[in-house]
């Protein structure tokens, strides 16, 4: 435990209030930043905060607090902490907690609760938050005595980080915060972490897996978020390089394996590159590493990689055979499993298969928007590509949900782990801005870009005030196409262009930024892009760029929901753009 300059020594046994115990325990758990919003039932805790070396970031909405804690955790690998009051404060956290649950993000949320004497009486701002969050947390606690605070918080940290990580909520009654108890940090240590009893990876299974890998002619590694969680990037790289196996990435896996690596084919799934999906469909062996065969990745289970044997390396036994039946399941920590597996794999010549994949790229690359002549229009894909080029792929990028998220995944090539912060499982609009703020607090020296659509940005745009108050140097790119773009795209493809409720009138985002004292500029042409981006990067403070992009652009390739991976809608040969309402 290191908290060097901390004035507070949790090892000393003293009688403290529950509120003080809360902060002291957080200090003991090496927490330095919490994101929160005060209120009646959590006021005793806020009152005690000044005595502890913890920075509190005041958010503008509790959903923002949860997403910031989430972004903090994703960028740093540490546990993110959010704090809110009872009732509406607690319920506002729920979307953020669910987002973290779906993406297995370690997070601890602390909520105030009405006094234990009035629990269950529908007291002012009372809500059953442990009941509400039960399905979206890994675990939660209702704490009504000061003595229970330290053990609950410590257990919460252990649960949040262990096994498959996830969010934990600790609901603390106001009287528990006010009462006193002996603070014993060491004594509050939870019982030793017990791994899931159904973890299963013995020699026989390892040999089976190794045999499949050695014999495979067309193997593909499916690289997921678990690589980051298990810190198994090196092991996956060894597996790929030694056995010459190409890699397809999930959305949340991006960055876990360098995009520029010759064996990295790119992203798979609904908006993955055609050759990646094709390679998966043609493969005779899939090696799934820390991914869960999400429906956005497999299309339909019945048509998914029917020629392939499947090896699933996964820490959560409940994921085995859930969506896709597998031949060999190695259930355990990805890094540990790979370290046992690698000695059984001597090496292999995979060049024939790699050449086949290279050939299958065919015209797809030619039709890529980067290779089309400049039509004077600004495409979102241009923005992503140029941002990647200008930042040299080194920025931490927090994206929202929708078209821009997919374009970012396709055109911002992540070579470094924990540089893409995005809501994959839940697909939470409004995630990018607060998550980017969280990432900036986790990595203050890194360049952070928030990329959001005009729809999602407005869901949590109030956090601009948080950026202004904290004087954060964050760059915000609003990809503004005047539509809820991904919904519009579905309407175009599957609902006969019935653009019901997707056109969007937005405020002038540059003026909105200005109202917060944040500088901004609009970009309408690609020619203007680089100068403005460089101006933003050079500016000593936050900067918002409103990218006015092509309105009816669509993300290609696309696998329609319920179709097989090889039934993707490919990039059209010609410019797909139809006249926009503005043009006519």
């Amino acid at each position, binding site marked *: 435990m290191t908290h060097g300059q901390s004035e507070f020594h949790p090892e000393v046994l003293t009688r403290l209030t529950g509120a003080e115990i809360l902060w002291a325990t957080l200090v003991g758990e090496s927490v330095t930043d919490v994101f929160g919003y005060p209120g009646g039932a959590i006021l005793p805790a806020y009152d005690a905060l000044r005595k502890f070396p913890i920075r509190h970031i005041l958010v503008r909405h509790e959903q923002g607090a949860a997403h910031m804690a989430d972004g903090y955790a994703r960028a740093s690998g540490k546990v993110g902490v959010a704090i809110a009051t009872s009732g509406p404060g607690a319920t506002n956290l729920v979307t953020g907690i669910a987002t973290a649950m779906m993406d297995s993000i370690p997070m601890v949320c602390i909520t105030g609760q009405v006094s234990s004497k009035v629990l269950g009486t529908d007291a002012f701002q009372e809500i059953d938050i*442990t*009941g509400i969050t*039960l*399905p979206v947390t*890994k*675990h939660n606690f*209702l704490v009504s005595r000061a003595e229970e605070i330290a053990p609950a918080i410590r257990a919460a940290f252990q*649960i949040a980080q262990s096994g498959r990580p996830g969010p934990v909520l600790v609901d603390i009654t106001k009287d528990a915060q006010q009462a006193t108890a002996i603070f014993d940090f060491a004594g509050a240590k939870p019982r030793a972490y*017990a791994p*899931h*009893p*159904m973890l299963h990876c013995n020699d026989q299974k390892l040999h089976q897996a190794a045999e499949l890998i050695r014999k495979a002619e067309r193997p593909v590694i499916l690289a997921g978020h678990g690589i980051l969680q298990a810190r198994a990037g090196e092991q996956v790289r060894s597996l790929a390089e030694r056995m010459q196996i190409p890699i397809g990435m999930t959305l949340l896996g991006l960055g876990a394996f360098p995009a520029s690596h010759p064996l990295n084919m790119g992203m798979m799934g609904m908006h993955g590159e055609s050759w990646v999906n094709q390679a998966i469909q043609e493969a005779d062996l899939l090696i799934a590493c820390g991914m869960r065969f999400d429906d956005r990745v497999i299309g339909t289970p019945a048509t998914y990689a029917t020629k392939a044997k499947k090896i699933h390396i996964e820490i*959560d*036994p*409940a994921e*085995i*055979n*859930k969506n896709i039946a597998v031949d060999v399941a190695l259930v355990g920590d990805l890094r540990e499993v790979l370290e046992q597996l690698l000695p059984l794999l001597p090496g292999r010549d995979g060049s024939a298969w790699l050449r086949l994949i290279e050939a299958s790229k065919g015209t797809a690359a030619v039709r890529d928007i980067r290779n089309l002549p400049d039509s004077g229009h600004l495409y979102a894909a241009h923005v992503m590509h140029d941002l990647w080029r200008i930042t040299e792929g080194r920025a931490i990028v927090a994206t929202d949900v929708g078209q821009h998220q997919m374009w970012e995944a396709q055109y911002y090539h992540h070579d470094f782990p924990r540089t893409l912060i995005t809501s994959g499982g839940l697909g939470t609009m409004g995630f990018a801005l607060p998550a980017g703020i969280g990432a900036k607090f986790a990595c203050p020296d890194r360049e952070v870009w928030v990329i959001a659509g005009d729809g999602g940005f407005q869901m949590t745009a109030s956090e601009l005030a948080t950026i202004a108050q904290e004087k954060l140097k964050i760059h915000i790119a609003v990809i503004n196409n005047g539509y809820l773009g991904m919904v519009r795209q579905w309407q175009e493809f599957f609902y006969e262009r019935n653009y019901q409720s997707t056109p969007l009138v937005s405020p002038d985002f540059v003026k909105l930024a200005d109202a917060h004292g944040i500088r901004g500029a609009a970009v309408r042409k690609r020619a203007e892009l680089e100068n403005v981006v460089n101006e933003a990067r050079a500016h000593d403070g936050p900067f918002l760029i409103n990218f006015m992009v092509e309105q009816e652009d669509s993300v290609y390739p696309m696998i329609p929901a319920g179709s097989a991976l090889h039934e993707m809608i490919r990039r059209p040969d010609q410019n797909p753009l139809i006249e926009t309402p503005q043009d006519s």
Partner: protein
Amino acid sequence: MLHTFVAYVEDKPGVLTRVASLFRRLNINIISLTVGRSERTGYSRMTIVAEASDQAGHRIRASLYKLEDVAEVDDISGISAVTRELALIKVAANAENRSGVFELAEVFRARIVDLAPESMMIEITGVESKIEGLIQVLNERENRVLEVCRSGKMTMRRGHHTSRVLRAMGVSSEPSASDSDRNVLPTVEEPE
């Protein structure tokens, strides 16, 4: 198919909700659920019977284990086990037609545990079909069935006991002093 799970869970508020919520989330109906104290202090034992697809057993067991309050889960679907249910059945009976109920109870190895001027209460233990058999025969008589209270299924594997919790915790399964007054029988250890 019918799945039967035995789970050892911490004896704390909210645990039942967590377990039940897992089945609810999967849209699986719990057919029978019994909970009671177990041989281990602080742990309750649940027997859960649910109708789910053949493949669901693995996922349910794995998901139950993911609950922090669940210590051990055994899937004993299709495994040699003793299953019992307890039922209390109140039937209408007066001085004229009581004797027939006594005879029936005898045949079913049930007991009469209450006798009132207008009714009798039968206690019966056994497998589901036996209890249903008694109810059916009662319904065929003039003794109307007034109330039925069934405990739900309780199941235990035959032979060696299955509680890996005890072994994992490194504690003997001998009853502690506090357990003895609860009439807990010592469990059989698996020979290692």
